[in-house]
């Protein structure tokens, strides 16, 4: 076998390292226990640059601990975390990472604009203040005192602190906790704009519709383990169950119909969950139920999520 010439293999090999920049997040087998409680039991995942990823899980699933380890605020008992190929603390210090933590508070007794000015001055390569104000949508609260903000305003202020560095990666821990519906809607508008700017976003949530609406990818965390890693659509299609709603005056027992696993009935309208919606619909029609206003819909991410977390071991 002839020796490879310098130009043909050595250089491309070196380029091989630089042409493939390290991913935004690389987590390998992180584990964390608090006393007897195993909060995180070995999580491995990778998030590429520009991806929008939801970390989904119920309370106590280990989401916050995972994010804390990701940001270097908590040291894992085992495993490693690299952000853009660096240790979390270094990536943060160089301004590549911004974070909005559930437990990350705001300095009390000061005004929003003063706090923003502080964050701006502490930043290595900050966005212009007006730009942060615009992107985080805080122009209306700039003169307010931090301790007097509502839940939604507070979260927007935290977002401002998270993006002031113009970071490539933004990590958000339950960013819409404590917001009403309108504030949540407004917040996700802002986040979509952030994703369009090419930022990598990783957000923890327990609201399915947020993961569904905003994320390219969903990681399901349950009892400290990753149970699924897929797109919202794949996750939803994993369960074949459908919901059927209709009106009927037939007095029969709906739960006897084929495929039906759940029945809710109120004043002439019925809502069924069926494993085999085709068979159920057929039986309804042939059995003389005369269903009116029949609708058949998929169960959505929530049910898919429940079906995954209910199975011990999940997909693995």
């Amino acid at each position, binding site marked *: 076998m002839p020796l490879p010439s310098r130009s043909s293999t050595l250089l491309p090999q070196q380029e091989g390292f630089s042409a493939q920049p390290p991913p935004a997040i690389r987590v390998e087998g992180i584990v964390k226990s608090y006393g007897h409680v195993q909060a995180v039991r070995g999580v491995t995942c990778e998030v590429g640059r520009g991806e929008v990823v939801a970390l989904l899980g119920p309370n106590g699933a280990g989401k916050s601990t995972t994010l804390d380890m990701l940001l270097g605020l908590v040291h894992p008992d085992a495993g490693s975390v690299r952000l853009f190929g660096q240790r979390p603390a270094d990536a943060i210090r160089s301004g590549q990472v911004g974070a909005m933590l559930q437990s990350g*508070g*705001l300095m009390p007794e000061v005004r929003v604009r003063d706090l923003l000015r502080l964050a701006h001055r*502490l930043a290595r390569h900050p966005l212009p203040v007006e730009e942060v104000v615009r992107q985080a949508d805080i122009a209306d609260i700039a003169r307010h005192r931090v301790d007097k903000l509502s839940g939604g305003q507070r979260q927007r202020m935290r977002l401002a602190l998270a993006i002031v560095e113009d970071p490539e990666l933004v990590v958000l821990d339950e960013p819409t906790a404590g917001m009403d519906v309108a504030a949540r809607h407004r917040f996700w508008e802002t986040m979509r704009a952030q994703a369009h700017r090419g930022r990598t976003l990783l957000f923890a949530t327990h609201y399915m519709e947020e993961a569904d609406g905003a994320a390219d990818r969903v990681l399901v965390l349950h009892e400290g383990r990753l149970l699924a890693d897929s797109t919202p659509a794949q996750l939803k299609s994993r369960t074949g169950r459908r919901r059927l709603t209709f009106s009927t005056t037939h007095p029969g027992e709906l739960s006897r119909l084929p495929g039906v696993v759940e029945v809710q009935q109120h004043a002439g309208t019925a809502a069924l969950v069926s494993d085999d919606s085709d068979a159920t619909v057929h039986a309804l029609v042939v059995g003389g139920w005369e269903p009116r206003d029949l609708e058949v819909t998929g169960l959505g991410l929530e049910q898919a999520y429940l079906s995954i977390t209910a199975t011990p071991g999940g997909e693995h």
Partner: protein
Amino acid sequence: MGVLLELEVKRAFKDWRFIVFTIGMPVVIYLLTTNGSTSSVGGTSVTRYLLVSMAVFSAIGAALNAGGPRISAEREVGWTRQLRLTSMSSTGYIAVKVLTASTVSLAATVALFLVGRLAKGVSMPWSHWIGSGVAIWAGSLVFCTLSILLGYLFNSTSITIGLMVVNLGFSMVGGLFWPTSTFPGWAQVVAQATPTYHLAQLGHSTQLGQAPAVSDVVVLAGYLIVFAVAAAWLYRRDEVRV
């Protein structure tokens, strides 16, 4: 760090209730205890002697109250955590807290001196005013550091009582309210172990234009080191836990 210091000092002085009570109480005590007094103590008049005692009481009260309570509150709301996600170092954060407490403590010292000069007609050469002022202010750094320590030791509810015990305990035992010469023998021994006693001695000697005694400086420096080491240890414990 400069921006944070500016913001912290602004915040401390904007809280007028805090300023009025921290600086006002020693002033009121000074005015009440020296009212109509013509006697002398420690080789000088009571109004002049107590001026230093109360300036020390004022300075350490300001130092203690301006640092710790905010740290324990900020630990609770998670502001210290959020700061760890910025380029601000933890040493920077603590340095700012010490400097802020020290600024309030300077204001408290100056306020008391002004009351002594303007309301009670205490007169001294300028060098003595400045000498004792600087000595008290510099010595109160020990209490700024102690305050940081307490901020990591207590939560925001219990720190109130912790500060009161430390402040009044050190002030009474250290002889700020009554000269230690009136204490029984064993109590004098205890008094001389407190940093307040040595800070007051530092103030009294510089007020008379004497050089500070080495023993006072050494004891205060010793306390400063002990408090700083303990504060650093508590800080690390806090960082690992949160």
